[in-house]
């Protein structure tokens, strides 16, 4: 699936988007996999309460299933308007 990063999450991880092959079935499992990769992922995902997640462009939470997801995005709380 595609994993997207926005705002300071993008800056910490150092890229806006990457292809991830994973057996993770929930967002939380995907996060655990990513955190284990490298320090920059660990730094980005250190405080989940500061993060929001969208699966296939719908806001959801970290328990959400991702088995059939095409796109998972991580970002800080939005600041539109």
């Amino acid at each position: 699936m595609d994993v997207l990063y926005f705002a300071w999450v993008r800056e910490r991880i150092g890229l806006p988007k990457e292809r991830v092959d994973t057996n993770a079935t929930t967002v939380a499992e995907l996060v655990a996999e990513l955190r284990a990769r490298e320090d920059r992922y660990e730094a980005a995902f250190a405080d989940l309460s500061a993060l929001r997640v969208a699966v296939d462009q719908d806001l959801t939470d970290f328990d959400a299933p991702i088995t059939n997801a095409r796109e998972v995005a991580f970002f800080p709380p939005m600041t539109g308007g």
Partner: protein
Amino acid sequence: MKIAVQSEPFDFGAEAAGFASGHDDQGAVVTFTGIVRNTADGTLKQMRIEHYPGMTEKALAAIAEQALSRWSLGDVLVIHRFGDLAPGEMIMMVATAARHRKNAFEAAEFLMDYLKSRAPFWKKEILSNGAEWVAAKEEDENSLKRWQ
């Protein structure tokens, strides 16, 4: 209903006038415009607005649909820019038309409250001495409770 997500400036006067004209069955039109505010010490060079292409349009349309289903409205407009904006530039606008002013005001406030915290935009202040992501305000999150 009109939803636009764009990097180009929009013509607020023309949009507002176009939205308000041609209704003889709607007595009330409310517009809200968000403007890039400089810092108190005048150090803001640019407000950089990042967004999530694809999701942004969907999220704005969903928020507008929610307003239309919740209040009796004649029309709804949402325009939001992304990219680099200078202080004083307009970031976004919403407009609502309704038979009565209470609905038009409430729906506009609802649109703004949701757009602030639920549409995928992120603001970064490019200052003369650095750059900083704008933090989400607890106050904005709390504003949503009014509608739940």
